[in-house]
């Protein structure tokens, strides 16, 4: 049994994805500010879950969304990063925050 087995997902591990550069002023957003607008690679499909953005307003029965673990180069995320050039940061991001990257 592998991660994400049997889940109908828009992206698969290895796909290059772009995080939407959206900046809501209210609500419960699990996509960190610092990663929006960045490009990474899908590392795995974590599963599918109710959308925290809806749960946060008491809507408990909305459709489940696919959650991915996405891997980014630290150097890309933090221009002044001083660690190793191959260092990565992995972040779990819901599908509706991701777009295919060119």
């Amino acid at each position: 049994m592998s991660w994400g087995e049997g889940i109908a997902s828009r992206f698969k591990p290895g796909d290059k994805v772009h995080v939407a550069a959206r900046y809501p002023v209210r609500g419960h957003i699990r996509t960190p500010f610092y990663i929006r607008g960045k490009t990474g690679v899908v590392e795995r499909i974590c599963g599918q879950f109710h959308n925290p953005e809806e749960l946060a307003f008491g809507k408990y029965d909305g459709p489940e969304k696919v959650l991915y673990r996405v891997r980014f180069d630290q150097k890309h995320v933090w221009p002044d990063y001083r660690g190793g050039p191959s260092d990565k940061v992995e972040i779990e991001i819901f599908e509706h925050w991701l777009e295919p990257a060119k």
Partner: protein
Amino acid sequence: MSDTPHRMHHDMGGQPAGPVGPSEHEIEPWEKRIEAILRCMQLRETPIVTVDELRRGIEELPTTLYDSLTYYERWIASLTNIVVEKGVLTRAEIEQRMAAIKAARAKEAA
């Protein structure tokens, strides 16, 4: 108009900051109680409040209040706002109950 993207106050990863203080403290009984209250409200067939609502309530606290409260004080502020917002309790009911508990404690201590 500024074209700087809007960042919600709590979402502070990567912002300039000092070192993180690693000191621990004993969890107080009232802090454990808040933790238990949230679980009782969430772990039901139909939740009264979920952790996502709790988080949203914390994230909606005014910046100065967010910065001045401790971890579980933020939980209290958020839980209070959420149960009032959802009509589970009124502020008057919460205040009456707190006054009654305070009076009972004072009586015990006397």
